[in-house]
C-alpha cells in the first residue's frame, strides 16, 4: 500500500467520520490480491481462484464484454472521474471463512469489534455475514433457523453448495447487461449474501450483512440473491463503512430478490461509506400474488450514490414500499430514489423519499412509477420531501411516471423546505443550541422512515444524522 498523503479534504472528512480508521499494515498479509485494472485475464483469474464452474466463467466474461461495450451513464452523478484502471478488483483477506469471531486475524477482528458487529450479533440478530474487501470472512446463522431449512450463506459458498438454485436465478431479476455497473458487477462479483427462506418460515430477528472496504482504491462488488418462499418472512439489514483515503474506491453491488406468493421481504440499508467511495448499486425485487416487498434505504455516506431500489409487482394484490433517506453533506451527491412497476391488477405501492442537503451537498429523488396495461385497480402514492439546510446546497426531484392503464389511482406529492429561522428560534428559546435545534428538525423530518426501523437501527440512523449535522452550523 502506498504511503498515505493526507490532503486537507481528507482531514476534513476524517474529523467527522468515525469509521475512517484503516489497517494499513495488513495489506501485505492479504491471502490474495489482484493487480490494478480490469481484463479478461483478471476475470478468469478470479473465477479460477474461486474454483467456479465453467458456466460462471462464461457469465463473467460475457458480462465484461457488456461492460466494455456500454458507455458511462450521462445522467445522475459524475461518474466520468472513476479511474477503472486504478482499482483493485479482487482482494481476498483470509484463506478461510470463520464461523467464530476469534478465528479471524486479530487486525480484522479488531475492525469488526470497533464497528460493534459481534456485540450486535449477540443482542439482536438471527444471523450475520461480514464482508471484508472481496470476501465474506465471517458467517453465522442461528442453529434453529438452519434446522428449519433457512439458508444464509455468502454467495460464493452458495454457488458451491447450491449451484442449481444460483444458476436458475442469478441474473434473472437484473440481467447482466441491465446497466454498465450491473455488467461490471456480473463480471467481477465476489461475496454478498444468499438467502433462502422456506415456505411458512418467519425469521423474526433480522439477518445482517456488514460490508467493509479497508484497502485504498478497492472495488467491492458483492452479489446478493434473496428468495423468500410462500408465506415466509425475512428482514435483511446491511451496513457499510470504509476508511478515508485521498483517492477513491468503488462499491458496485447487485441485489436480486424474489418474493413468492404471500411472502414478505424487508431489506434495510444503512449506507455510511466514507466520502471517497462511489456507490453505484442496482437493486431490484419481484413480488408475486399478495407478496410484500419493502426497501428501506438510508444513504448518508459516499461521494456519489446512484441507487434506485426497484419493485416489480408481478402478482395480483402484491404490495411494494420504498422508504428512502438521502443525506448529502459537503462534497457529496446522493442521487437516490425508487421504482415501482405495476404489472398485475390491484397491486399497490408507496414511495416515500426524504432528502436533506447541507454545506453544498446535493441530494435528490429520482424515481419511476409505471403502471402497465392490464394492471387495473393499481394504486400508488409517491411522496418526496426535500429539506435544504443552507443556500449552497441543492435538491433535485425527477419523478418519472408512465401509466398505460386508465383504471388506476395515483397520487404524487412533493415538498421542498428550508429550516426556518422561526422554527430554529422557537427551539433555541428552549435552551437547545443551533446545532441541536437543526438536528432535531432533521430527525423529525426523517422520522416517518426511522420509525419503521428496529430500535437499534433507528438509534444508529439518528446518531449518524447527528454526526452529519455536527459542525454544520454556528
Amino acid at each position, binding site marked *: 500500500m502506498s504511503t498515505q498523503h493526507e490532503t486537507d479534504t481528507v482531514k476534513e472528512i476524517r474529523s467527522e467520520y468515525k469509521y475512517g480508521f484503516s489497517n494499513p499494515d495488513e495489506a501485505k498479509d492479504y491471502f490474495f490480491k489482484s493487480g490494478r485494472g480490469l481484463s479478461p485475464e483478471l476475470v478468469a483469474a478470479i473465477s479460477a481462484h474461486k474454483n467456479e464452474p465453467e458456466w460462471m466463467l462464461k457469465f463473467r466474461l460475457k458480462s465484461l464484454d457488456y461492460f466494455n461495450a456500454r458507455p458511462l451513464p450521462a445522467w445522475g452523478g459524475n461518474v466520468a472521474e472513476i479511474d477503472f484502471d486504478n482499482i483493485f478488483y479482487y482482494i481476498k483477506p483470509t484463506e478461510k471463512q470463520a464461523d467464530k469471531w476469534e478465528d479471524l486475524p486479530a487486525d480484522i477482528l479488531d475492525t469488526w469489534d470497533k464497528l460493534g458487529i459481534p456485540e450486535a450479533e449477540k443482542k439482536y440478530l438471527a444471523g450475520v455475514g461480514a464482508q471484508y474487501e472481496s470476501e465474506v470472512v465471517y458467517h453465522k446463522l442461528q442453529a434453529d433457523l438452519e434446522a428449519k431449512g433457512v439458508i444464509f450463506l455468502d454467495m460464493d459458498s452458495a454457488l458451491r453448495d447450491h449451484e442449481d438454485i444460483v444458476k436458475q436465478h442469478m441474473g434473472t431479476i437484473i440481467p447482466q447487461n441491465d446497466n454498465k455497473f450491473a455488467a461490471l458487477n456480473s463480471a467481477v462479483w465476489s461475496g454478498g449474501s444468499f438467502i433462502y427462506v422456506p415456505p411458512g418460515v418467519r425469521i423474526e430477528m433480522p439477518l445482517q450483512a456488514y460490508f467493509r472496504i479497508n484497502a485504498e482504491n478497492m472495488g467491492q462488488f458483492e452479489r446478493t440473491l434473496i428468495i423468500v418462499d410462500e408465506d415466509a418472512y425475512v428482514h435483511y439489514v446491511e451496513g457499510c463503512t470504509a476508511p478515508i483515503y485521498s483517492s477513491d474506491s468503488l462499491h458496485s453491488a447487485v441485489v436480486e430478490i424474489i418474493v413468492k406468493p404471500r411472502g414478505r421481504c424487508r431489506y434495510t440499508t444503512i449506507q455510511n461509506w466514507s466520502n471517497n467511495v462511489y456507490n453505484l448499486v442496482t437493486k431490484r425485487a419481484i413480488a408475486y400474488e399478495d407478496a410484500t416487498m419493502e426497501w428501506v434505504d438510508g444513504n448518508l455516506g459516499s461521494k456519489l450514490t446512484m441507487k434506485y431500489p426497484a419493485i416489480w409487482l408481478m402478482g395480483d394484490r402484491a404490495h411494494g414500499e420504498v422508504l428512502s433517506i438521502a443525506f448529502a453533506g459537503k462534497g457529496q451527491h446522493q442521487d437516490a430514489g425508487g421504482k415501482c412497476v405495476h404489472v398485475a391488477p390491484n397491486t399497490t405501492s408507496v414511495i416515500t423519499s426524504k432528502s436533506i442537503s447541507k454545506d453544498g451537498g446535493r441530494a435528490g429523488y429520482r424515481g419511476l412509477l409505471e403502471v402497465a396495461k392490464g394492471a387495473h385497480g393499481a394504486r400508488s402514492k409517491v411522496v418526496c420531501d426535500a429539506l435544504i439546510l443552507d443556500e449552497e446546497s441543492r435538491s433535485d426531484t425527477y419523478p418519472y411516471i408512465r401509466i398505460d392503464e386508465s383504471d388506476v389511482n395515483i397520487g404524487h406529492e412533493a415538498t421542498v423546505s428550508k429550516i*426556518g*429561522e*422561526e*422554527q430554529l*428560534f*422557537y*427551539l*433555541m*428559546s*428552549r*435552551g*437547545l*443550541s*443551533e446545532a*441541536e*435545534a437543526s438536528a*432535531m*428538525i432533521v*430527525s*423529525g*423530518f*426523517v*422520522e*416517518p422512515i426511522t420509525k419503521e426501523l428496529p430500535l437499534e437501527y433507528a438509534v444508529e440512523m439518528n446518531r449518524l444524522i447527528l454526526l452529519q449535522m455536527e459542525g454544520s452550523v454556528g
Partner: protein
Amino acid sequence: MSHKLPPRSLYCRGIEAHEVALLEIKNLHVALEDGTEIVKGVDLSVGLNEKHAIMGPNGSGKSTLAYALMGHPAYVITEGEILLDGVDIVDMGADERAQRGLFLAFQYPHAVPGVTVTSFLRSALNAIRKARAGGTDNPIPIPEFRKELLGAMERLKVPRELASRYLNDGFSGGEKKRVEILQMALLKPRIAVLDETDSGLDIDALKIVAGGVNDLVGPEMGALVITHYQRILDYVKPDFVHVFVDGRIVAEGGPELAHTLEADGYEAFIPAAEAV
C-alpha cells in the same frame, strides 16, 4: 384619574426586596433589520415572586419587545441593556438566554413535525441541565422525567395523548397554549414572558393556563404577561401594570390600572405617547 407615573417606590417593591432585580430592562431600543424602530426606550424591572402585565393595543410593539428579550435574530437591539441577574444578555443567543432562566411563551408556537412533545421536552430539559452543570451532560433520569411530565400534564389538564404527538403539529390553538405552559412548568425558568397567551383560549382553557402561571410564580420565578385584553388579568392578578403604546411604557400602576384601561380604552393614553 391620572396617567402620570406614580412614585417609583410604590410599584417597585421587587427592587427593594432584591438588591438587583432579576430582569432589568434599561432604555431598550429595538429596530427591524431595515432600521425601523419599534421599541423606543423601555425601562422595566421584574423581580422574583412578581407578576407584571404589559398592556397595549395591536401594533404597539409588545410582541417585538417579547422577541427581543428572548433574542430573536430579526430584531436588532440598537440601544440599552437587558440584565438577567445583573448580567447583560443582549449579545447572547436565545439558547443561552434560556439556559440562564428566561422563557418566552409564544403567541404562535411553531410546529416541529416528527418530534414528539415528550422527546422535545426531554431534550430541552437536558440542554438546560447541561448548561447549568457547566457543560457536562447531566440528563434527567427517565423515571423522574416521566413523573414530572405526567404531574405537570395532570395539573394543566393536558390530555395524555398529546405527549406522544408531534410538537404543535395539528394542535388546536388551545392545545398549543397549554403545551407552552407545560414547557414552562418543566423547564422551570426564573423569568417567564407570556406573549398574548390568552388569545384564542376559551374561558375554561384560560382559567387553566392562568392557574398554571399562578402556581409557578413565587420565590423561584417572576412573570411578565403581555396582553391586549384585561381578560387574562382577572385570573393572573398582576402586581404591576405597564401600559405600552407606540413602543413606550406610557403609564404604570397597580392592578387597578388594568380596570381603568378596560373602562376607558387605550385611546386615552395615545396622546401621552405622542407628547413624549
